[in-house]
């Protein structure tokens, strides 16, 4: 190898390193304000939760019939968004798509933060969280809820590994180059986490192999996490839930929600950290196309999910479908379908729309739509019980989330966003070594 090439490589690598480590070294007022805002909100949510803990679930809008409300809807929402880690890194990555390199880690951070919150929100939904251990002490192999606990836990661990393993070379770089630039505790953290990474060919060999195995493993695990989540509903006879396509319906819906979340995160990280050179319009274009693809598949499943029962109109189903199409949930349903599905597909077809800013707006629309879509999946079915609803208080017939409930839900979302924000500040959001490798730097050398 010639010296010129060597010097060239070194210069390229130094630039990449400096660019991508800059967000870690620099202090941003906007970022700090954002974190403080989130924490304030979370504190308020904790106050609301203390009221719920004290008085019980009666402070929520949930009653005997609608016993799953915003919390379970956000549980499904969190699991859905978390699935994007698998979509981007595993499905698209294993297909050999190179454009996902700067996006992959953002997706993994979102996945880890959201799947952790999925577990938390279940505890929030429990009237007696002190009895949480009973789930594990008195489990039943036959219970889909137990399967869900299993897959969520497994997914948390694999997501953590898939975030941590590709971070190792970057941690080695940070340990070598950030001493003095960051507080001592931070450097110590990087030093410990880097596991003595020096980038020998052997270490790279082990790393590549392990990541590859985990990427293959996460595909079935991620599919099962959301399929099992759908089974919590679909394994019952309730109209609106009693559907054979609920598994794929959830999975494809999750891909749409996750794509939206990644688009939003990409936009703000790119702007906030001035990473225009690394997350380019090309990446937004590609993500936009991926979003349209997933949304089209989801549209197909929506068609099946609603047209098939609506054509037959079995008595119980017809109650459910009329509630959604023309009844009390019609506004929410049509807004969700329009802004969470139809409009993003149509807009995403135009190249002009697949630019950063419009894509971010579409991403917000997708995420908000995805959340309300989960509410629509969970609540209207519960309103139509098969048992006669007689001699019960009026408020049992409907579900209106209370302020406390909404505050807690938003608080849990805020925690998820906070985790993503902290991870994105603590570690390089774009893998340095992978980008360098893409630009032709021989990374399997100790740099």
């Amino acid at each position, binding site marked *: 190898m010639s010296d010129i090439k060597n010097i060239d490589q070194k210069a390229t690598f130094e630039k990449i390193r400096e660019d991508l480590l800059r967000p870690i070294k620099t202090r941003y007022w906007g970022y700090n304000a954002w974190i403080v805002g989130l924490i304030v909100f979370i504190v308020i949510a904790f106050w609301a939760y203390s009221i719920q803990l004290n008085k019980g679930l009666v402070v929520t809008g949930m009653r005997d019939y609608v016993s799953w409300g915003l919390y379970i809807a956000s549980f499904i929402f969190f699991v859905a968004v978390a699935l994007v880690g698998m979509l981007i890194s595993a499905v698209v990555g294993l297909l050999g798509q190179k454009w996902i390199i700067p996006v992959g880690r953002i997706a993994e951070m979102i996945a880890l933060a959201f799947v952790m919150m999925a577990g938390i929100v279940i505890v929030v939904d429990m009237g007696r969280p002190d009895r949480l251990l009973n789930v594990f002490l008195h489990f039943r192999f036959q219970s889909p809820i137990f399967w869900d606990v299993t897959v969520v836990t497994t997914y948390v661990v694999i997501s953590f*590994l898939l975030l941590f393993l590709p971070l190792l070379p970057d941690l080695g770089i940070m340990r070598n180059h950030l001493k003095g630039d960051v507080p001592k505790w931070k450097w110590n953290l990087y030093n410990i986490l880097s596991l003595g990474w020096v980038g020998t060919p052997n270490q790279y060999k082990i790393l590549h192999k392990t990541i590859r195995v985990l990427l293959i493993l996460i595909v079935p695990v991620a599919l099962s996490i959301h399929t099992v989540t759908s089974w919590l509903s679909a394994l019952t006879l309730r109209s609106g839930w009693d559907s054979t396509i609920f598994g794929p319906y959830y999975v494809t819906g999750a891909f749409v929600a996750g794509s939206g979340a990644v688009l939003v995160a990409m936009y703000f990280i790119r702007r906030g950290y001035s990473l225009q050179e690394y997350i380019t319009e090309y990446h937004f274009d590609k993500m936009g196309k991926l979003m349209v693809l997933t949304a089209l598949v989801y549209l197909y499943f929506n068609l099946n999910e609603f047209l098939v029962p609506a054509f037959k109109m079995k008595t119980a189903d017809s109650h459910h479908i009329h509630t959604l199409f023309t009844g009390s949930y019609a506004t929410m349903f049509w807004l969700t379908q329009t802004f969470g599905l139809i409009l993003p597909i149509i807009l995403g077809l135009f190249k002009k729309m697949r630019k950063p800013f419009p894509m971010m707006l579409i991403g917000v629309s997708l995420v908000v739509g995805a959340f309300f879509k989960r509410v629509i999946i969970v609540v209207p079915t519960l309103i139509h019980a098969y048992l006669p609803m007689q001699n019960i208080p009026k408020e049992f017939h409907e579900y209106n989330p209370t302020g406390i409930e909404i505050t807690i839900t938003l608080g849990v979302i805020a925690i998820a966003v906070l985790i993503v924000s902290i991870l994105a500040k603590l570690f390089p959001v774009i893998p340095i070594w992978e980008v360098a490798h893409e630009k032709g730097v021989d990374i399997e050398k100790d740099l």
Partner: protein
Amino acid sequence: MKNTYKIIGLMSLGLLMMSHLQAQTDWGITAEQKAEELKIPFTEQNQEAGLAIFEKSCKACHSKTEIVPKNQRQLPLAPNLGCQVFQSTHTDGEIFWKITNGHIASGMPPYGTSLSDDDRWKIVSYLRTLYADYQPPTNAGEVPAGPPAEKFTGTIKSIALSLDAQTHKITAKLDAVDAEGNPAKAKNVKVSIYIKRQFGSLLLGTIKTNDNSVAVVECPVEIPADTNGNITISAAVANSSAYTSKEVKYGKKLVWKNPLDGNHLWAVSAKTPLWLKITYLSVVLIVWLVIFWSIFQLYRIYSLRER
């Protein structure tokens, strides 16, 4: 204009109601049919046979026949046939042909094809027992010879029930006293014999006692019994407080299978179906083996660090 519509609407409504009323009253019975009289002798035998048919074919809609001057019953819609207005305004032929042709619009099905002429006349003769002023026709066929059956006038003290498992016969023997309080034979007394079932009693038959105060009825073979192989038989005498019931070993013993026995999806965790347990445990084991393998790889990377 508005009023015109109202008037037209009201008129059509009225016409509709009238046509409906018309349809309700018109059973299509000719004067000739109406003039017909009871075609079988008005005997106790025929009346009882008529009652049996009534209970099987008519009671489901018409419910109990109670002798009342005017039908004031709201439900069931099918009228109480013991109503004296009905009895006095209907001829024998009218009742017979109403049973025969039915009247779909008002809900009465035709029995002309499912019950024979004789059976339908028997129903008429039963219904006429509810009308004290009824004059049976004199030329209604031959009355069987012999003196009418004598009626028992004493008091039934008790009933002794027994079931012979070999002959499948239930025997009810009455213990009776006459008007003076001396032991007497209870002849021609109607005894109803039942078997207790889940939601009520199954009537095996209402039989008249013979000269020895004994009524015998056949018991169905292989009738489902309880889990101990027992059935409860009972006997009652009409217009008397005499009643007895008895548990006897008979019939097909019920073998109850507890749905919680064995491994099922709905059972407790210890009774998980084997396929589910194996699937769950093996999938979890494989996935977690890979995870632990990955964590071990982290250790390998760590052990390759520069010392």
